[in-house]
């Protein structure tokens, strides 16, 4: 085994061009476990923790770029304005894990339980990839994640980061697990409201082979906010049956399996509960005066 320690993005891309079998290592919170338990013996590892170009957060033209090397601890400190992302970041692991784990790692591992992923899905984020030979390309999150722990990345590419259009409106990330820390989600949900376009967006984690969007639920609640006049006047509340139907549609979008962390039925119920809470929080937040 060989470990390569590039100091810049150019150097890292050159390594990936010449050594396509080299496995990228960032915070190590997934990869090191496989290495420690002898499940992974790559011929080469390329360490990205010194590549400072990957550890940036940038806002430009109404868009946000989150570098692949940004840790959950950094999101917790520096992105208070992005509440769903902040809540997801705070729910990851423990202080030790958040100091090391990165968004790029969540993307590269592409586990349906990656807590940042439902947030990126709800934001309709693009994943930015780069290779030395072909330069940069951008894939929507759903084109990038092709299956459980499978992505569309080419062997000579690195994940540079994620980019999304900044939304105006409330949102949240919440998850279900056995304790508040060190939990692999049994079900996770991100809901964001896009006030400008009159859309509610809902993404689910840990309840299917990949991250799922609850599109029928999104259409139902977005339309209900329209017909009730609530988009124009947030003080207008939605009738309970509308919220019930929304929660049912979100639960119906899940494709859960039974496994050691929970049954399919429990996960589906979890989605129902998370959906009801998330929409209630968002509707309450919309009623708050803007100066709060």
């Amino acid at each position, binding site marked *: *085994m060989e*470990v390569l*320690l590039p100091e810049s993005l150019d150097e890292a891309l050159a390594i990936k061009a010449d050594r396509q079998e080299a496995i990228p290592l960032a915070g190590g919170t997934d990869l090191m476990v496989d*290495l*420690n338990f002898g499940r992974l013996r790559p011929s080469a590892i390329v360490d990205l*923790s010194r590549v400072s170009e990957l550890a940036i957060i940038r806002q430009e033209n109404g868009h946000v770029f989150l570098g692949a090397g940004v840790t959950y601890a950094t999101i917790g400190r520096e992105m208070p304005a992005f509440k769903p992302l902040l809540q997801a970041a705070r729910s990851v*692991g423990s*202080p*030790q894990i958040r100091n*090391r784990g990165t968004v790029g790692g969540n993307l590269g591992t592409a586990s349906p339980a990656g807590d940042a992923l439902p947030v990126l899905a709800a934001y309709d984020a693009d994943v930015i990839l780069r290779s030395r030979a072909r330069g940069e390309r951008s894939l929507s999150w759903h084109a990038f994640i092709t299956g459980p722990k499978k992505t569309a990345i080419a062997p000579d590419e690195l994940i540079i980061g994620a980019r999304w259009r900044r939304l105006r409106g409330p949102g949240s990330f919440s998850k279900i697990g056995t304790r508040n820390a060190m939990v692999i989600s049994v079900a996770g949900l991100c809901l964001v409201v896009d006030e400008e376009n009159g859309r509610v967006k809902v993404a689910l984690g840990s309840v299917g082979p990949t991250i799922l969007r609850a599109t029928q639920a999104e259409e139902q609640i977005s339309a209900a906010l329209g017909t009730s006049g609530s988009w124009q006047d947030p003080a207008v509340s939605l009738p309970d049956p509308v919220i019930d139907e929304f929660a049912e549609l979100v639960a119906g979008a899940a494709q859960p399996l039974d496994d050691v962390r929970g049954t399919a039925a429990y996960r589906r119920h979890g989605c129902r509960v998370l959906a009801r809470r998330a929409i209630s929080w968002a509707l309450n937040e919309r009623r708050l005066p803007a100066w709060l």
Partner: protein
Amino acid sequence: MVVRMRVNGDWREADVWPGTSLLMFLRDALGLYGSKNACEQGECGSCSVWLDGALACSCLVLAAQAHQREVRTIEGLTNGDRLHPIQGAFVEAGAVQCGFCTPGFVVAVADLLNKDANPSPATVREALSGNLCRCTGYQKILDAVNLAAARLRADA
């Protein structure tokens, strides 16, 4: 590969298998046995160290990732044979039973009290959420944190 890092202020190096974790580098190559090896998957916190000042599970860091970097371990907290005030508080509060988790806890508590000299109970629980103890039931550990925090504030 030859890995070289500054550990508790001294430059140390060793020729190790490139897949060696920082934890195994510290224990097997440098003979620093304070950081404990238990879960090897970041669950238990008993291998907690500082890498460039940030608290981390050394089992989840490749030793090569710490090459040319600064590492501080539990051994770096003590002053010769004198216990660090946090260690003293753990002993007095009965927060040490089998003792296996203690170095990781002491490092995590030191990290917390360095950032927040008077942490709320919720902050303490959150800061120690990555460390497991199977003996104490945690209450005496929380008592030790309060005792250590009060003493360190009094000394400051």
